């Protein structure tokens, strides 16, 4: 088994109402050394963020109570989470305009379902390292 430690000391928030998807992604990120916060909808995600601001967020779009777009809008209003890189993980690939999401909500990217946990991990690692680079400069 390949053991990763790229996420050592880093925290990621995963938000999806599909338990199995959440579980698979959590499994992958923990193996990579990330600390993983999980939420089943936008409101739960905000509660987790109150506890700790993550280094990156991966969120579904369609969720009960508070959907992904509402969550992102709330995060961008909050000074603490304004610059946190966000990836959107969604089955509504062709219905969401990635460009609009990037421009309006500063979403770093859109990952379409069905997704590869390996690919998702790689994208998050890139985001975190880029964010770190920006902070240091």
């Amino acid at each position: 088994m390949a053991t990763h430690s790229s996420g050592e000391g880093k925290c990621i928030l995963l938000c999806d109402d599909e338990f199995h998807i959440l579980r698979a992604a959590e499994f992958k990120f923990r193996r990579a050394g990330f600390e993983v916060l999980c939420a089943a909808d936008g409101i739960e995600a905000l509660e987790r963020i109150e506890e700790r601001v993550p280094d990156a967020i991966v969120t579904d779009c369609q969720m009960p109570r508070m959907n992904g777009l509402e969550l992102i809008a709330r995060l961008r209003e909050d000074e603490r989470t304004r610059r946190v890189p966000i990836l959107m993980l969604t089955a509504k690939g062709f219905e969401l305009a990635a460009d609009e999401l990037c421009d309006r909500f500063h979403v770093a990217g859109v990952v379409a379902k069905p997704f590869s946990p390996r690919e998702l991990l790689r994208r998050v690692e890139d985001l975190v390292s880029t964010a770190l680079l920006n902070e240091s400069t």
Partner: protein
Amino acid sequence: MPLSGGVGIPAAPGEPKGNTTSNMGTAPPRIHVSRWWLLTAAIVMSLVLSIGEAIWLRAGGLGVALIVASHLAGAGCFLAVLLAWRGMASRELCERVRLLASEDLSRLSPQEAGGLSAFAGPTQWEEVVVRLREFVVAAAQKLEDAGQAQASSEIRARRARAERDRLAVILAGLPDPLLVINDYEEIVLANLSAASVFGVDVQQFGSDVQVKVDQSLDCPAAVKLLKDVVRRRTLTQRTAEFSWRDGFGHERWYRVICRNLDVAAESPHGMRGAVAIFNDITVQKAIQRRNAEFVSSVSHEMKTPLSGIKAYVELLVDGDAETPEEREECLEVINGQTDRLQRLIDNILNLARIESGVVDVRKDRHSLNEILEEVHGIVLPQAEQKEIDFQLDLSPMYLGVIADRDLLLQAAINLASNAVKYTPVGGKVVLRSRLAAQEVCFEVEDTGVGLSEEDCQRIFDKFYRVKKDQQMASGTGLGLPLAKYIIEDVHGGRLEVRSLINVGSTFSAVLPGAGAMSE
């Protein structure tokens, strides 16, 4: 030949009609006799008056002579006036011209020919007669032609009026709005439908009141298209689709088909401008939108279990699942998600079968409780994810149903799964069975978001999804319609819903019983 008696020269005033040609050969004696009678009568009357006057005055020979002379002169004047008054000369002329208009010149008597010598020399009268006859015949022909032309014009005018009235009726009955504008972008024709839909004044061709299309038609897309077609003189047909909010605030969609009338302008009664007809495509648009939503929902529903399968397969392939328990968990998820995908495909296929009228139903005697236990097992993981208390409350009796097991299972799964989807985290769902008179019943009761009265009416419509709850869970809008079809149409039962907003809903399925006994 009708010329002489019909449209030929009119008879003189006071003359009897119809026999003007019957006495042509003997007509002059009648005239001469009356003239002589008049002359004789005048002389006799003058003499009688003179004698009477002379006796009364006791006049001498010279006096009598003067009296007679004066009376004779008076009688002559009276006779001249009388003859002039009767128009003897013009009458004779008319008689002769009428004879000229007749075919048979040989019927002209020498006396009549002599009478014409006043107009021509004795040797030229025949040529004059021929010319006069030609002139009269030509004039009569023209008169007849003019009469026929007038009659045919009247017929054409009647036909045109009838055609116009028929077109007006057709246009009025046309359900689609229709507008015609001229080269100056003025509305020259608008039917009743255009008036009722767009509020445009009804116009008929030739109406004095003409308004600019952009002042009367409040549809910028349609106005722009009409103007473009008129200005650019586009020969091909052009179409555009636009939405329009009607008087009740409802959005309606129209496809406007517009064509230039320049081709028609080449005809004698043509005009320049454009004609536009508006097709109401609201229903087609709704179907398109619903189909698009259906495809989107189905695709979303399929991608979700596929995501689980793909992710867990990859975890296994990458060796991330190290322990046997982790590997077991991965395989269980893959299996569960595969079943979920299969159920979705079954739903879609069943719907297709229903719509095509081909449903393969195999009914046998089954225990309702057993079917509901299976449903509980299938939906429980979904409920556990949301920490929903999913209870099974089965009747202690054996409740038999004659049913297609697979179809009834699918209907019950759809109802239970729907309840779990729309019940908030930590809620409660109860799957219950009971005996109701000669029928058996199963219920799915939840503490979910509930349905409005309108939603309760429409919740079994295909593809219908409650708007306010769409973000709460994904769905295709097929589960409940399919359940209703299976319970009511396939099994002869009833599926009903009772609901209160923010309190919860209860779906009750009543099926004909096939015997009940204590278990």
